[in-house]
């Protein structure tokens, strides 16, 4: 069952519906690594046992990446799938 969560997005991240996040405008559509303005903070109050993060490359093949940082103490099994 889907579980809702609280979000705190920084200046270069736009939340476009309940679960989707994109760079906030052309000025933010640049490659950055480790810059806080391109980070969103998620807090899930309720009980969960899985998180799915889907990344859509809307640029048609320029590559892409993101980084997830979990707080300490979690034990995870991670799988990765490509989607057409």
């Amino acid at each position, binding site marked *: 069952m889907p579980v809702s969560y609280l979000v705190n997005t920084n200046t270069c991240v736009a939340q476009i519906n309940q679960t989707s996040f994109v760079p906030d405008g052309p000025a933010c559509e640049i490659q950055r690594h480790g810059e806080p303005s391109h980070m969103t903070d998620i807090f899930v*109050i309720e009980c969960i046992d899985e998180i799915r993060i889907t990344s859509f490359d809307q640029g048609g093949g320029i590559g892409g990446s993101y980084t997830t940082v979990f707080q300490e*103490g979690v034990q*995870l099994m991670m799988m*990765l799938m490509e989607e057409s």
Partner: protein
Amino acid sequence: MDAKYSFTEEVCTLSFDVWDIDETDELVIEAFNDGTPVMISASSGQCVAQFGSDTFMPDGSSCEVQVSGDVSHKITVSISSCVTDIRIKMYDQGTSNNGGGSYTTVFKEGCTDDLDDGTLEGGPFEFCVSNGEADNIPTGSIALSGNSGANSTWVVTDDQGNILGLPPMPSDVDFDVAGQGTCFVWHLSFEEGLTGLQIGQNVSNFQGCYSLSNSISVFRNESGAICNVTCPETCSTPYLALLDGSDNGMADINNASLTVGNAILTVHRSFNGTAVVDENKINASQTSGDVGLRLDVAHAIGSANNMEAVFSFSEAVCGLHFEVWDINQTDEIVIRPSIMECQ
């Protein structure tokens, strides 16, 4: 095969369906206004993969089967500009097992309303059914956007497109009583006079002006893992968050990486714990004193593939705090936490 449909006069806001994209078909659908290309948009059934704006094929080997009137092998093409010609080119990509090929095009005659079925997001959903406990899609968990039209309804079908229900909302349906199988949830926009919109009819037999959205799957199981879930009596809370607002300070220790096609997932940090690759997955654990777990997910330049990373917790957690960094360039990141339905 190359089929050209020329209209006797300019047609605007045209919508039509193309059925039976199956076996080894590849279809290219183009629209023109007096020779000038016109952009099309399309929504596809689950067994149709779209490449670019105009090319459609069965989505994987499991879909390369011969069907007739199966909604999962259908696309709905919408053209908001005015057109004079439609061209559909079919390439038989079969080599060793060339069994011929066919498709069916259904134009919706005389439709004047600006119909748009909209786009559904959410799911898929899975329930343990026939156990006497109601199984409803949670309210608000299917999002509808972009729809228009004078009339609309939700439609629930079986996996052959037979209409099982026309509920006011998807959350009104109790799937527990439906037995084992697969359902699809659709949204339909239509004009007055549509026929075939009745329980027991098939959505491929609609006659009139309508536009049917993409579908959301609902898997109904009477056994298996979904039916053997025990709710956690307690939900563990991770250790106190030590996130410091920056992922740069997390040194690479106990690296492990997993490559799938053009995508790669890398564990960059597990201070006192372990990160072990086990065939198609990585198992990572941490102990008290760790400072967090940093995971990078990336795909190569030149690859337009999308990626889905699944993070499964060894036990349910609540109050979880995590960060997603580097939302930049042309990324769209969709984050969906969930809890398995418990008995």
